[in-house]
């Protein structure tokens, strides 16, 4: 039983990261009906920028641990958001009226571009976040030793997700986003500035992906230019699992995927961990293709 709970917490912590990245995928899909394959690389860029800012500016030394990390997160979110907007303007906007396939190819191209740009700028070897930034305490809950950082990461992920959900549900801009996701044409007729909405989506999504990158970098330590691929793929699965285009779906999909992976590793076999995750994806697509919480697609009446 102890093993079950330990693995559950392991899974939730990983799932929180998947959920943050999945939110980026799901928001972009909801509004543009496009899978932004370059999203995983925005996550990588976030991790690398976090490293540069941390080592170049010595934030935690100057501002203390909590404030320093918060400042780092905010700065990285801002920078990656800028990259996200530029990506949208350069790679997606010109193709808005073109074939859907063209936009997908453009996304793949952007992904390759970012990966290699990171490799050329930062070098092909691994980079490692400075050790000893985060406290190493473990908290003892119900007899399980859980590193405090995992709890903090999970908590931070949930806070960000709830903030996003409230933003989308309760604010005027959020309503504009939801309107654009349902029907861009009708939204325009109602006076929604769809271009602005798209830019906002490309600010929020990449910002979340970037902060996930910083969290992964700080916790696991090692970053390299291909890290976005696996995380991006898993997050994509998580988004589909929860219902692509659906924000709470992405959150639940991410956490669920993390737990499924951990349980699969614990009770079936570690070597088959990824196979189990992909198998779940196939199952969902067969049984309930719109995902657990349903897809946000316009109904043609």
């Amino acid at each position, binding site marked *: 039983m102890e093993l079950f709970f330990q693995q559950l917490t392991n*899974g939730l912590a990983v799932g929180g990261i998947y959920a943050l990245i999945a939110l980026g995928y799901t928001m972009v899909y909801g509004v543009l009906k496009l899978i932004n394959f370059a999203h995983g690389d925005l996550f990588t860029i976030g991790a690398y920028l976090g490293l540069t800012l941390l080592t170049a500016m010595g934030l935690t030394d100057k501002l203390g641990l909590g404030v320093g990390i918060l400042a780092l997160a905010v700065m990285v979110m801002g920078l990656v958001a800028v990259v996200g907007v530029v990506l949208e303007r350069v790679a997606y906007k010109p193709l808005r009226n073109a074939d859907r396939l063209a936009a997908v190819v453009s996304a793949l191209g952007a992904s390759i571009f970012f990966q290699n740009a990171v490799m050329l700028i930062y070098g092909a070897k*691994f980079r490692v976040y400075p050790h000893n930034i985060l406290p190493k305490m*473990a908290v003892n809950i119900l007899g399980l030793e859980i590193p405090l950082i995992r709890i903090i990461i999970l908590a931070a992920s949930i806070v960000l997700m709830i903030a996003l959900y409230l933003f989308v549900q309760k604010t005027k801009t959020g309503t504009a986003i939801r309107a654009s996701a349902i029907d861009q044409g009708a939204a325009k007729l109602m006076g929604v500035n769809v271009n602005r909405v798209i830019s906002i989506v490309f600010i929020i999504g990449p910002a979340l992906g970037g902060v996930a990158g910083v969290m992964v970098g700080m916790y696991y330590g*090692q970053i390299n230019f291909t890290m976005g691929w696996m995380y991006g793929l898993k997050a994509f699965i998580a988004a589909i699992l929860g219902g692509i285009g659906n924000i709470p779906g992405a959150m639940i999909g991410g956490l669920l995927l993390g737990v499924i992976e951990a349980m699969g590793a614990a009770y079936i076999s*570690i070597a088959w961990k990824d196979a189990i995750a992909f198998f779940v994806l196939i199952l969902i697509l067969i049984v309930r293709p719109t995902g657990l919480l349903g897809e946000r697609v316009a109904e043609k009446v």
Partner: protein
Amino acid sequence: MGKRTIQMVVLGFLALAFTATAAFAGTIKIGLMCPLTGSWASEGQDMEKIVKLLAENINDKGGLLGEEVEIVVEDDGGNPRTAALAAQRLSTRDIVAVIGTYGSSVTEATQNIYDEFDIIQLANGSTAIRLTQKGLDKFFRTCPRDDEQGKVAVKTIDNMGFDRVAILHDNTTYAKGLADEAKKLLSKQGTANVVFFDALTPGERDYSAILTKMKAAKPDAVFFTGYYPEAGMLLRQKKQMNWNVPFIGGDATNNPDLVKIAGKDAAEDFYFLSPPVPQDLQTKQAEDFLADYREQYGSAPDSVWAVLSGDCFLAVTTAIKETGSTDPDVLAEYLHSDLKDMPGLTGKISFDDKGDRVGDLYRLYRVNSQGEFVLQSD
């Protein structure tokens, strides 16, 4: 530009080209296939530096058979797909031999390509047993083999008195081979019980689920046969979980990046098997070479696998010099039968009739609290 000007420019270039190659009669091309990018970029970049330095040394002394040695480098990316493409490209570049590569699964993907083109291949880091069991008469390796490593691993486990051992690999040719070998020997000799045997996915970051599962099996020690990036992450996360069971690594965990990734705290008291690391090499050739390398690049090479690629280079250039030929069959024959105890950087080099290196090379190392690799005497 007028037609006249273009003609002058072309003539000018030709003149330059002729003067540039006037020093040497021609070139002998030797290929280098190494992981310049990807998970093992540290290894690949060291390999390139070492081989190029050795080539420069030969050229400064007049070249090989009066010709300039040129190194043709291709990146194998540390994965079989990219390597196959790299091998195709290299095979059409008129190379006499190719040095490479590090990972066994990567080398394996290229063996048949080189064999088809009759190009001699000397691997420096691929220790999987089956690479020399295919009857490829132009394949050689300067690195040892995993059956020797399996024996040393089991002897180490025995010496340290562990009864319950967990074995973890990563499903690559090399790691699985070594894990299977160790498991086989452990059950045959009855030294210890294998209480856990499974694989992780390379490139993943979160190993908490795996570590939790291993911990539940209550081993006395864990033998990890995978590569250094994953080993570093495992050590770091094991420390975060406050789990103190000793970890023993195979030779692919031997790279200073391991300590960088894991952090000195987590890497302390990690044991691994390996041929002697560059600082512990005792031949005169090695000492001279290391001094040379330090002068050129500012610090000693990080990895013994890269130094082994230097030995590949020395072996093939010795063969060319002694036989006076660049014919692959002649060179292969020489390397199999006539190259005896050539003084290389890592010791005496001879190849047996399967292309394996003769001699026992594996030692036990421990990482100390400063992150240094300390040779343990038996």
